[in-house]
Structure formats: C-alpha cells, structure tokens
C-alpha cells in the first residue's frame, strides 16, 4: 500500500510538471501584452518597457520558463503582475474560501443526492422515484447563475431567512486566520457567534453550487443501486432470509458505492474550479474570482498558480478516491 502511494505521488509530480509546461505555453501563446494589461489604457510606452524589464517579460520564453521552474522548486510561485503580491500569499488568502465552500457543497450534495438516489431505486417507478428523477433532471438542467440569483432574491431579500452575499456579516469581525476556513478558525477562536454567521452565509452558495452535483449523485446512486439490486447475490441474500434493510445496507449500498465514489471524486475537482459563477454572485472571496481577474488581465504567474493548485487538488482527491475503493471493496489491492 505504501509503495502504491509513493508511486502515485511520484506520478502526481510528473503530472503537475506537465501542467506547468502546458499552462505556461498556452498562456504565453495569446497575442496580447501583459505589460499593457497591468499598466492600463493610459500608460506610456516607456512605462511599459520599464514594466517588462522589471518583470523579466522581455527575456526569451524558454529562459522565462527556466526561471519560473527554478523559483517553483524553491517553493516560490513568483509575483503577480497585476498586484505585485507573492502568488503563494494570494493563493493562501483565496484558496481556503473556495475549499470551504466546495467542501460544504459536497456535503450538501451527498446529504441530498445519496438518500434521493437510494429512495429512487427502492421505489422504482413509484411516486418517490418520480420525485428523485424530477430533481435529478431539474438540478442537472438549471443554470447555476439563474439559481444563484433566484436563491438570493427569495431567501435573502424577500423572506430574510438567510444572509446575503459575502462570507460573514458586514459587522462581524473575521476570526484570526489559522486555516483560512472560517468555520474552523471561529471554533479555534472560541467564537460561536462568528461560526453561526459563517455557517449561515455558507448555506445558499453551497446549496447552489452543490445542486448540480446533488442531481448527478441522485442519478448515479439510483442507477448503480438498481443494477446491484438485480444481481444474483442480492437474490441469494434475500433468500437466506436477511431483512430488507440489511440486504440494502450491507450488500447493495456498499457495492453501489464504487461508481458513486468515482463520480464524487471528479465532482469535487470540478466544483473546486467551477465555483466562478457562484462566487461572483455571492461575492465570495475565493479562487474563482481571483482566477478570472488574473486571466483577463493576463497575469501569467497568477494563472499558473491557480492552475497548479487546481491540478494538485484534483490529483489529491483522485488519490483519496482510489484509496477509498479498497475500503468499499476489499478485493481491490494496491500492490
């Protein structure tokens, strides 16, 4: 198992290196000038020349890449062209907000998607199944953007049940940063008021972000479970006189978990990088907005940083999913 993990980690390094090379080449292939983007419409030619000189943009592409990789190996992701901040600091500031939102969205997706999927399979063709399938269809087809505005208008503005945009109330003081996850930081600061505030702020955006995933999970769980329920061993289990709950809980769900797990892994990855719209509408200070601003202002080092961290998160989640296979199906070995 340890060898397996080490081999996967080595492979991950290789993948991430590929990501740097790909992202570097693609971002530099654009026919536009980052100096002009950073200095704005009114900047003069001398200012642009000076900017290129200071940021090494006038060096050959290969040299720029070698310099970048040299920095990266020392743990330095370079400096943002737009803000002149260290990229590592930027990511540290923005990534946790997205991670927290995504984690809660995944939890919501699981809490909604799994039970609905199971119910759909067990009541196949009957009204509860219809409900599950309708949800799966609607959740998958509703644009995030529209859902976000609808949720905000209804639950915040009209009904006043939940707070509006942002991670915390305007008048709340953010807890001291340890992990960057406000839910955890507020607990560390023993500040339950801020914890509640943060949790309430998370509900709408996480539900909106998780809706599509919940729908997909419902569909996956339902079909995976239906397939398992038609297998011989289920019939055998039933004929042995096991209770229905035990058959479903012990045999069926466990065997249906593998495809669901696979979907969950890739969902998490896509949520992490796909939070842009939700973050924009809910004014969520996460990596989505950072990535967009960086991309449209041709801030190459920042774009590279975002790409790398997304790649890293994706790889780590995939590894965890693969390891979890072994837990659900002991026949899978890691040798």
């Amino acid at each position, binding site marked *: 198992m340890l060898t397996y993990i080490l081999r996967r980690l080595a492979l991950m390094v290789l993948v991430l290196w590929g990501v740097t090379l790909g992202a570097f080449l693609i971002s530099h292939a654009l026919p536009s*000038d980052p100096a002009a983007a950073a200095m704005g419409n009114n900047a003069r*030619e001398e200012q642009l020349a000076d900017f290129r000189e200071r940021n090494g943009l006038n060096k050959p592409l290969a040299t720029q890449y070698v310099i970048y990789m040299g920095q990266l190996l020392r743990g330095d992701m370079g400096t943002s062209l737009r803000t002149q901040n260290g990229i590592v600091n930027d990511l540290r500031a923005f990534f946790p907000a997205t991670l927290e939102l995504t984690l809660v969205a995944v939890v919501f997706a699981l809490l909604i998607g799994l039970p609905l999927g199971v119910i759909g399979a067990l009541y196949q063709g009957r009204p509860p199944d219809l409900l599950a399938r309708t949800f799966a269809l609607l959740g998958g087809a509703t644009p995030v953007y529209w859902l976000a505005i609808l949720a905000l*208008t209804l639950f*915040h503005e009209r009904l006043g049940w939940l707070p509006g*945009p*942002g991670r915390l*109330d305007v008048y709340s003081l953010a807890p001291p940063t340890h992990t960057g996850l406000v839910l955890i930081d507020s607990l560390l*600061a023993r500040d339950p008021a801020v914890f509640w505030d943060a*949790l309430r702020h998370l509900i709408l955006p996480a539900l909106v972000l998780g809706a599509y995933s919940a729908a997909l999970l419902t569909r996956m769980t339902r079909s995976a479970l239906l397939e398992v329920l038609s297998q011989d061993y289920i019939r055998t289990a039933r004929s042995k006189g096991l209770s229905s709950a035990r058959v479903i809980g012990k045999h069926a769900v466990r065997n249906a978990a593998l495809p669901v797990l696979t979907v969950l892994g890739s969902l998490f990855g896509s949520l992490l990088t796909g939070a842009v719209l939700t973050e924009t509408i809910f004014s969520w200070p996460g990596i989505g907005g950072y990535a967009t601003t960086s991309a449209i202002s041709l801030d190459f080092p920042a774009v590279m940083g975002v790409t790398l961290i997304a790649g890293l998160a994706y790889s780590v989640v995939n590894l965890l999913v693969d390891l979890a296979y072994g837990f659900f199906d002991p026949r899978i070995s890691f040798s």
Partner: protein
Amino acid sequence: MSKKAASAHKLPVFSRGLALALSLGLSLAGAQDARQSTLVIGGDFSDLITLDPGVSYEFSGSLVAGNLYDTLVIYEGNDLKTLKPRLASSWKVTPTATGSRIIFKLRDAKFSTGRPVTAADVIYSLTRVIALKTPSSFLLTDVANITAKSLSAPDAKTVVMDIPKTANPNIVLALLTFNVGGVVDSTEAKAHETNGDYGTAWLKDHSAGSGPFMLNRWDRSAQVALDVNPNAFRKSPNIKRVILRYMLESAAQQSSLNSGEIDVAWDYTPDAFKAAQSNPKLKTLKTDTFQLQYLGMNSAKGSPFEDPRVREAVRYAIDQDGIIASLLQGLGRKTQTIIPIGLAGSDPKIYYPYNPAKAKQLLAAAGKAGGFSVDFLVSTGSCAGGVPCQDLAAKVQSDLAKVGIKANIRQMVNSELLTAYRAQKAQLIQVAWSPDYPDADGNGTPLSDYAAKSLAWRNSWENAAASKLAQAAAIESNSTKRLAQYGQLTALLAKEGPYAILFQPYKPVVVQAGISGFNRNANGDVQFEKISKK
C-alpha cells in the same frame, strides 16, 4: 459582537439545532449601534490593488486613498475648476528665469499616528513616487517635469517646488489633487521600509495619512474597513466606520440594498437603476464622470478611414440619442468633441446631428458609395455607463449598416483589445477614455498629439496643426487664451479627428433614503466625512 461577549456563549449553543438558527437568525449584540455609525458601500472594488497613495492608479484605490491621505490642494465636491486648500493653507505661483516656482504654506495638521505633518513629509512623499516609478509617477516626472532637486523646504511649514517652462503650473496644481500627491507620514513609512521599497509593501494594506479616516483592515476581495482618524482636521458628523464591501454583481448589490444590508450601491446597471428610481426607500444619483465612450477609426494609409469624409460619415451615421435613451436609459450625455463636459475647454456644440442620408452622401463623395467592410474590435466586458459592450456594439453595427458600412464585431477581453489598439492594429474599435487629472490637457494631448504616442498615434492620425495646438494649450498659463486654443482644437478634431464620440456616461449610484451628504464627483472622489446616516 465583541470577542469577549461571543466566547461567553461557548459551544453548547451549536447543539440547539440548525432549523432554529436558520429561522431566527443571529442577533449580534451591539450590532445596532454599529449599524447606526457604519456606512456600508457595496460595489465592484476588484480593481483595488494597493492603498498606497503613491502607487494606486485605479478608481477604487484613489477613492480609498483620498479618504486616508490628504493632498496639498484639492477640488472640493463637484467643482473641479476651483482649486481649494487642503494640507496647504495657501500657495503662490511666481515666474522664475527657468519656469515658475510654487510656494506652499502648510496648515497645522496631524497624521493618524499623532505626528505633525511637515514639509519634510511632503517632500518625502513626492520623491518616493518619483523614485519608485509607480504607474502614476509619470504625472510628476513627465507632466510636471519635477525631480527630487525641484523640491525644497526652507522651514517645517513651507514647501517650494520649482518647475521648468515645459510644464504648466496650473496643470501641476491640478495633478497634485490626485492621490499621487497624497502625503504620507515619512517617519512611519521609513520604519516599515524593506529592501529600499520606501514602505510600499507595508503601505499596500496599512495607512499613515492625515485624512479623515485610517485603515482598520483590508480583507482582500471581501471588504475594506476604515475607521475615523481621531487626529484628522476634517471631521465626520456621525460615521465612525466605512466599509467597502466587494459585490461584483449588480444583482447582489440590489438584493443587499433592498434588504438594508448595505447603504450605498455602486454599480447598478441602467435597468436596475431605472427600477430603483420608483422605490421610495432609495435615492438614485446620476453622478458625473469625465469618461468618454468612443469609436476609434484607424486613419492609416490604405485604411477605409484614411479619407476624412468617411470619418465624418461615421459621425453622422451614429444615433447618439438612441444609444443614450435606449441602452443607457438616460444615464449619459451627448457630446461630440474630445474634452468631456465639466472641464474648462469642453465644447457643447453638436457638430453632427443624426443624419444617415448625409452620411451616405459623404461616403459617395469619398468614392465608397457601395460601402465597405471593416473589423470592429469590442471588449467582452462592460462599457462606460454599465452597458454591456456587446449591446452597444450591436447598436453601432446596425447604425453603420444603414449607411452601407459592414462592421464585423470581433469580441475580445479588454487586455487583448488594448494590445491590438496599442499596436495600431485596430481598424475600428469601441473603447473609453478617462483623463488622468481634471484638466483639458488630460484629453487634449493624448487624443490630438501624434507625438505623445497615445490615442492619436494608436489611430494612426497625424495632424501637425492639432499637435501644435495641443502642445501650446498644455503650457499656456493665460486662461482666456487657453480656452480659445482648446476651442480651435476641439473644432479641428470634430471635423478631422479619428474619433466618433458615443456618449459621456453618468455613473449611477443608489443610496438608502436615510443617507445624506453623499456626493461622487466626476473624478470618482467621495468625501466619506461629509456623509451622515439616519
């Protein structure tokens, strides 16, 4: 809620169930008081890069820096023609053999750190901008033509600035009102210097000024909180804290303004603004700007726009009234010359009433009776006045089509658009321009003088008479003469120039009915200390 009060709740609170928390909401103790004395502005502040007055060159940065720092002189409120004292209680301009000398007398003022503002602080602040080569330092080096040697301090309350003949003292004073002239507590900045950066890294998210507010904290992409500076000489009636809350979307701002969470919304779309006008709980303000949204026509040899008659035809073909009424919902003004309304030198004359028939005649006279086809570069983002650029472009496209010009819209992100424009590669482009400082020269030189390598150059438009006029007007110190020169320049550009001005937008701002004293001027400045809340 204070931390102490919060920790008294302890953890068992959590176990009371999610449903309860959801429905009851959490009342924050003491929040009511805080709400009364806190002004919350929701807006797109994503252009905020630094709060350092010497480095900041973006709208949001200038807005905040203007409340954290004082400049020597200032334009107050909407009067952007009359210079008012700020840190300088008085100033005098006298001619010298090499140019002119401005002597500033400083008032008694204190920084938020408690130290007095001295002439040494002023000189440090200006020289650090020159040394740092910040995005705005060209205003001091290239426009004002000053160096570290131009500045001296005979005593702690007097600053002397020598400027050469190549610079106009009136323009120098005008640009000193911009945050590039913000005065920093030099002792504080030096104390936080790292690697000879003049404290830039520290001043990015800390403040050391004498303005009415000081920085509490800036949570990037979330909010900026400013607290009242107890040492300031400009006092706020009842606002103790100002929070700029990042809200990129007009929809989010509407929702938060309607729910009472924010007091001021900054970026309404024209449609949302129209809806807010009929809401008695809100006040809608059409605030001035100096922005001009225009079409640039590349006049290079071989281009369809080489012939001035074709450029005139485009100006006749554009239905400005239609754009302002339908797309902007009235959030714009009609103007046709290069100096925006509100600056001395602007020209109110309507040279080109909408006339497609006349446009066709001109095209025929230019030998293009059958029309022509041209690439039309358009940003993917939002244009001046909050209109989506693609909507505006579609209107322009249909106007031009009526006279036979086929404009093929090519949408690209702004950075890419600017790169093409800068390389003189845009045939027809839809962009906006805003002057760096509130003076006619902020538009006169870049839009008219080919040698300045700015807009006239980007549109390959070289006109010796225009260059000469722009250069002369820039340094003319007699205001009557100067106005006459700008009159000639704007008329020349209206007839010959490579631009078709589309409109000068208003910036829509919506505030709660209980807010008074809110004013945003054409420079984008808001004096937070003048605002009060009921």
